[in-house]
């Protein structure tokens, strides 16, 4: 089944872009392709000027590790690891030593205002806190792009706004952010909105 049917778009470095669309419009698939989590059949995808077509899983893992950070609707924290360990995990896969990892993890937890919670397990934290931990985890590997799939989907409006404020401040530091959302007030806070319908760009 073809989900995406000819997407032609360019996202510049430093942009904060929202992808909108009804369910089944292909917005999550697009994000997964951008995140190298999913493959595509035709066309080309250039990330930082490099073609990402037909990457091996190993190469994809390398690019994900170097360029990309992920934020998910359901947070996807590892439930038996503390906030600090969760944040430090991407650095483990980059071969950073333990002490350095913990140092950086604390630094990034501080950045999202949760350094006091470093020793807590995910189930001891609220949804907003979990999402902030997830954002700290996405940031720690110093990525160029953060891909957020419905980052506020599981949060109330107050915490949603806090999370969006955090994402915007990160964007101001020069990190490109792509947010998939179906909430207009979230999309409205982005520089640009790409609306998808049946696998095609409806308008920008």
């Amino acid at each position, binding site marked *: 089944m073809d989900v995406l049917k000819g997407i032609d778009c360019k996202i510049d470095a430093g942009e904060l872009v929202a992808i909108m669309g009804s369910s089944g419009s292909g917005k999550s698939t697009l994000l*997964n392709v951008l995140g190298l*989590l999913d493959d595509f059949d035709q066309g080309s995808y250039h990330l930082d000027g490099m073609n990402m077509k037909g990457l091996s*899983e190993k190469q994809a893992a390398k690019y994900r590790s170097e360029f990309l950070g992920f934020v998910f609707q359901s947070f996807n924290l590892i439930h038996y690891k503390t906030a600090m360990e969760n944040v430090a995990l*991407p650095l483990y*896969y980059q071969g950073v030593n333990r002490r350095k990892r913990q140092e950086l993890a604390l630094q990034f937890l501080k950045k999202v205002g949760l350094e006091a919670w470093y020793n807590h397990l995910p189930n001891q934290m609220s949804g907003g806190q979990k999402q902030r931990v997830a954002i700290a985890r996405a940031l720690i590997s110093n990525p160029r792009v953060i891909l957020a799939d419905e980052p506020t989907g599981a949060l109330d409006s107050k915490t949603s706004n806090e999370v969006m404020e955090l994402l915007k401040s990160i964007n101001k530091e020069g990190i490109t952010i792509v947010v998939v959302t179906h909430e207009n007030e979230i999309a409205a806070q982005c520089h640009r909105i790409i609306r998808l319908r049946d696998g095609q760009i409806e308008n920008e």
Partner: protein
Amino acid sequence: MNWRPDWDGFIELVQILLQKPMRTMLSGLGVGWGLFMIVLTIGSANGLQNGVSQELGDMAKNSMFMWTQSTSKPYKGFKRGRPIELTIGDVEYLAANSTVVEAVAPQNQLGGWRGSNNVTRGIKTGAFTVFGEFPEQQLIEARPLLSGRHINKKDIEDLRKVAVIGSRVKEILFASDEDPIGGSIRINGVNFTVVGVFGSLRSGEDAEEDLQSIRIPFSSFNQAFHKGDEVGWLCLLFDEDVHADSAAAHVMSVLKARLSVHPDDDRAFGHWTVAKDFEEMQMVFSAIRGVSFVFGGLALLAGIIGIMNIMLITVKERTNELGIRRALGASPGVVVRQIMGETLLLTMLFGLIGAILGVGTIEGLDALLKTFPEMEGGSFRNPEVSIDVVVQSLITMVIMGGIAGILPAVRAVSMRPVEAIRTD
């Protein structure tokens, strides 16, 4: 990334295994049990072997005992059924004409099992087996000297009336605080001077027999008890490089030629070799060991399959987590290593526990047996496992653990990360 000692990875693994301690325990149990059984059965087999080997004592492996019977074939004018008798002359001839014999020790015997009282000392009497022997006897069946000396060459040459007695003989004929050396005993009415006391390296009844015997010079024996130049039987030590069977055949052919016995007459002489007995025993024990390896191996295999199964379930349950890890930059290789590592850690940890418990049980059994002196001399003693066996089993287990990890590891990376993340 290459294989290197990865402390972080190890902590990671321990953390994961402690996630579900009960499951980890149960899945490890199979492997632990397998190794425990291997160690236990092999240890027991060794115990049995030690028990039986002890009964052979310190007898030289290349020794042979030979005695005469009656002919079963007519030859050179002699009828069948002629009793064969050996003399000192025959023994000297054998020693001079055989290429494989290294030492010959003829023996004669007086009295025997449950014989009548034949030895006296004052008012004390006892029934003991008296052997006339040569110093070479020590080469074939060593007896530890407790005091004094053994029979020597000079005793033989000078027909000395001396005796070396077993420790039990000493207990019966001498007071406990009395020094037997220099004491005089009367064997069938002939006085002998005690020059030494010996113990035994054998166990059980064999040891008892040893300790209740008296050894006197062969020449004095024949003179004192009117045996002329008769020889009861021969103990021989043959070249270690020659197989027991061919050594026996050779010795007998030399004697057959000298004593005019038909070359094909198998009944004229009887013989027994330690090596032959030893070989048969070895065969029995390697069979026992083989069986324990097979059963232990099967238990181990079952354990490993259990581990593989549990890892497959774990991988399935953790699909989402593994997907997240891959989104965070874990390459398939890293995930494979993680799963393999978990499998190996599980196998090794519990295998080691099983092995330690097995060795502990064997050692405990050993200690327990030692506290029961009445068990001493039984067919089961010093159960033990060599460190080789333990190490080999552990290595086998690690290899099998590695194999068991392959399928779950492959399963773990077979899914695209996007699907894995979506799985709950």
